[in-house]
């Protein structure tokens, strides 16, 4: 299986990763190798098999949607790369 450079560019865009030309070459070869190895799975007959997303068959866990005070707000806010007062600054989102 071969992954073309344009496929790598498409996947990288969906992944929000900026790749260098060198990385595009590397990943098109490596992802191709990994995916050909994964094509082994086609040998397994799963035509009548249900998928398993979660192994213990968990039940929904619900609780009241009530806010709780966080003990150290400042510890969270000071992690922000850009901050103004008690707000986290982000680049313009709406054009």
């Amino acid at each position, binding site marked *: 299986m071969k992954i073309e450079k344009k496929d790598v560019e498409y996947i*990288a865009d969906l992944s929000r*990763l900026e790749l260098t030309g060198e990385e595009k070459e590397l990943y098109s070869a490596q*992802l191709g190798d990994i995916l050909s190895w994964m094509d082994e799975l086609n040998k397994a007959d799963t035509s009548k098999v249900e*998928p398993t997303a979660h*192994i213990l068959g968990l039940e929904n866990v619900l609780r009241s949607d009530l806010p709780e005070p966080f*003990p150290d707000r400042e510890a969270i806010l000071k992690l922000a790369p850009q901050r103004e007062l008690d707000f986290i600054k982000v680049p313009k989102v709406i054009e």
Partner: protein
Amino acid sequence: MLTAVETVKLIKEKKLTALTALENCFKAIKERDGEIGAFLEVFENSARAQAAAVDAKAETGKPLGRLAGVPVAIKDNMAYAGHRMTCGSKILEGYVSPYTATAVQRLIDEDAVIIGRANMDEFAMGSSTENSAYKKTKNPADTACVPGGSSGGSAAAVAAGFCPIALGSDTGGSIRQPAAFCGVYGLKPTYGLVSRYGLTAFASSLDQIGPLTSTVEDAELALSVLAAHDPKDSTSVKKPALERPFNMKGLRVGLPKEYFSDMKGVSGEVAAALDTIKNKLRSAGAVTAEVSLPNSVYALAAYYIISSSEASSNLGRFDGIRYGSSVKGASLADVYRKTRARGFGPEVKRRIMLGVYSLSSGYYDAYYLKAQKIRTLLKRDFDAAFTKADVILTPVSPTTAFKLGEKIDDPVTMYLSDIFTIPCNLAGLAGISFPAGKSAAGMPVGAQLLAKPFNEGLLFNIIREVERAA
């Protein structure tokens, strides 16, 4: 190096202080961690303050916790309020946790002393700890070899005698494989038994926190503290680990024929060590039975699809906006792309892209859905095997620890070192890696026992019997 059980006993008998126990660890770390590189950071100040508080409690006759004064290392993907956490990644350089993971808090509540954060493969993606963005960790048995991964720092710290207990996390073998490579015990508890609140998520349907220790008693003690329901983790189960009457006589040990009759890729030394364990089990009264796990040949590929898909979603949060390192960009999307390009290492990028590809329109059915169906087949294999056997014995990894640099450029070969540990996570079982001897070159070999969910107690009991039969 004192075990955790010994440390607690001596401290409770006032024959040892927590500060002395801690200083002994620091001394061992200063002497040898320059060479081993198990720790990314030693929490000297907070650990001394914790130890002093334990000693003050002992002094005033207050009741001491079950881990009184036990020095514990935590993997660098667990939050500890006021301390740095990087997950072995540059994207979290400078991050200071605003809160504490439940697993870490439970140790602290029992008077354990948190001594530092252990090195790991970036975001727990790897089998050698070489994917850490900060440093290479060496195997204490031979510093030319890797310690395994991703909890390589945790395994090396225990093996080098820096601390009796280290926490690791296991998504596809990340506790058990480094435990085997370094010659210590590594437990992957049943999915849901230990809270993951405060553990940086890699693949949420597989991740589990567990202890690495130098004795089976310490693994049992650590699990008894860690296992509890936590309302902050919706996958945390309410039922505790099972305590069943145990009788070694007639215990059925399953040997998967796919692993034993055709030990393809398994080194002679690993196969020989497993034979020794088999004989010890038999002489202790157990019977062995052949079981079949026909779909285990697909487990590895299914695992990389499932874990990478989940990771591609979980790692979406590292975007340079709320925390972590950030690169300026012309637009929001540009900030994301540049921050992630600079912050993530090659293995993490590879797996994010693999996950995104598996989940993308047109490929979802062929990869992600297919892998989830394989997971069903694998679970059925284990359900059938556990009607014939009480536990299953397997190797941990096909070989002993490999050399640094040997597999780093070949992802698929690297992935193969987890072939025997991955099915346990996919099926949600309890699994433990324990020392099974040494190779001719003196490298540790591990053996793995798998049990049905919540049967950790059975695993501990069997290992004790095997060791008595020695």
